[in-house]
């Protein structure tokens, strides 16, 4: 049983190991806090934010090791596919994570989300061909929607009483209307240039997106001192 407000920190382990370690070392002690960061679009801004709030981020980001400990070994960082971050955090494989609200809502994962972060702004929007933008939305009995966000798209149309046929794609969703696969798309719109290039315009906003800090529900209680420390540091710089 634990009587302290936080769990004992395995202060040895990672820090000591660094000297003689090799990249093939597979099993290591788990750092007290595991922080999942998204690869891709949000990676650099996320790292920069953590740098600014004084959470030392490992410099050797190109290492092939999967878990990168910070200097004192108190936090381990893992770079994950953005879509995996909510899953890692819900299961407690990671305690804390950064991801986009689009990914979080689409995943439906049950996590705490204490802070929104000042980057990764964009819209998840419904877009359609610019000659007849919202005709399908208003009048088609069963509009076909191409999207990477089947859950959010289905919910958006269901709420409006529209029985949409949601066609899940994993990329280049704009091709849907171009190729006649779909009447509309639901996708992330940042500048709108991709839409314009494909003869599409934004019709409705499904979700205003920005990056969000998420925390595992159990870790929030069991590692409250460390987690609150991270939240405070991040809050101070946003």
């Amino acid at each position, binding site marked *: 049983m634990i009587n302290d407000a936080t*769990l004992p920190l395995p202060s040895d382990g990672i820090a000591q190991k660094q000297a003689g370690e090799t990249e093939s070392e597979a099993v290591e002690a788990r750092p007290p806090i595991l922080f999942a960061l998204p690869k891709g679009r949000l990676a650099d801004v996320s790292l920069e934010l953590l740098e600014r709030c004084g959470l030392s981020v490992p410099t050797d980001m190109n290492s092939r090791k999967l878990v990168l400990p910070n200097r004192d070994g108190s936090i381990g960082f893992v770079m994950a596919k953005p879509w995996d971050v909510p899953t890692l955090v819900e299961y407690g*494989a990671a305690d804390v994570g950064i991801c986009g609200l689009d990914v979080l809502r689409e995943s439906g994962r049950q996590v*705490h989300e204490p802070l929104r972060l000042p980057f990764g702004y964009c819209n998840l929007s419904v877009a359609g061909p610019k000659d007849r933008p919202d005709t399908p939305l208003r009048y088609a009995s069963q509009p076909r929607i191409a999207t990477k966000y089947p859950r959010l798209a289905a919910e958006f149309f269901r709420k409006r009483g529209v029985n949409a046929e949601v066609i899940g794609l994993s990329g280049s969703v704009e091709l849907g209307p171009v190729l006649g696969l779909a009447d509309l798309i639901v996708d992330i719109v940042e500048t709108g240039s991709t839409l314009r290039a494909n003869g599409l315009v934004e019709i409705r906003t499904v979700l205003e997106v920005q990056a969000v800090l998420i925390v595992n529900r159990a*870790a929030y*209680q069991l590692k409250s001192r460390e987690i609150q420390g991270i939240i405070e540091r991040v809050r101070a710089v946003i």
Partner: protein
Amino acid sequence: MQGQIPFGVADYFWEEALQRQELTANLLATFRRWGYGDVIPPAFEYADSLSAQASAGLQAEMYRFLDRDGKTLALRPEFTTPVARLVGTRLHDWPMPQRFGYAGSVFRYVDPQAGRQREFWQAGVEMFGAAAPDADAEVLALTVEAMTVAGLRDFRIVLGQIRYFSGLLAALQLTPDQSDALRWAIERKSEPALADFLRETPLSSEQRLAVEALPGLSGGDIPRVIAQAQRHSLNSEMSQALENLRAIVDAAASHDILGSIVLDLTEIRSLGYYTGISFEALAPESGFSIGSGGRYDDLVAHFGPAQPAVGVALGVDRLLLARQRQAGQSASIQPARLDALVLTGNSPAAMKEVQSWRAQGYRLQVEVNGRNLSEALAYAAQTDVGQVLAWEGTQFVAYRAAADGDFVPSRGEISFDD
């Protein structure tokens, strides 16, 4: 289809099944020692009974099907409602309080996740007819004991009192949309969502302060949290909730469990079901809660005279998973443990000795396939049995596996020690 099993169920066998059976047996034995009687409700019953107070989410997860007479049945998705039905309909005139303990599988149409398939196991207790804080404290203490009996070293009970929040909602007089927004912000511990709520909702300064204070009302320093919550109490429901919580904490102190308890007045996930304390059991190795419970004074009235009630349900699968991780083990797939494989040569005297060892609790398998000694030794080696006993006229000779895996005969007294 032949040979496949449906998504969400599993075959447990050998060591895994044994651990599961032993854990539930230990938990039931613990419940009995605390004076909780056994109860085995049916695996399916009328869907209406099981839905008596089920949330929309739980209702959507129930396996329903039609009886031959057209009535809708459902597999039990939890034990509390069936036990409450039993007490409400058949035991309402038996002296109170009544205590029940159970263990068994429940069924929910969910996406399988860590330690939870569509058929998963629960073990828990319910106490009826006791409204006093001592009853809540006993259930908390028994939860701590059960987690310890299950072999968990590190865990916490996160304790809330749902009436503090429901009292706050009543005091704020919100529209349904506004109260949904506040609930959502509190459930997800979202500071920006709470800020949005405060910006968009007209509140008096006193009300505003009470809402702003909510996120801070958690932690292991129980007197501080209660005192801070008291400062922002807006009505008698909120004050009574804190008074009740204070009394329960005092009673829990006598059980010496306060070190395992963290207070969180924003733990409101089961608003609408629980009517007093609600709590979750957490362990650092498991990202999901291992058990949950609380006071539900409104449930029994669906089936008979109203009775206050408090209980807890632990997830057996999650207990096993967390215990395994705390012990640093991976899932073990081993054949059933045996103390020896025995060749009796169909001698009555040999069989008699086997029976006396079995009576002492040793696990002995008698060879029935006509294997001779060398075949039996090979079979023992394959199935990881450390000892073979062969009857040689008047006595057994033991062949024990040596370090190199070969079996060597050892004359003299038979022993089953490793």
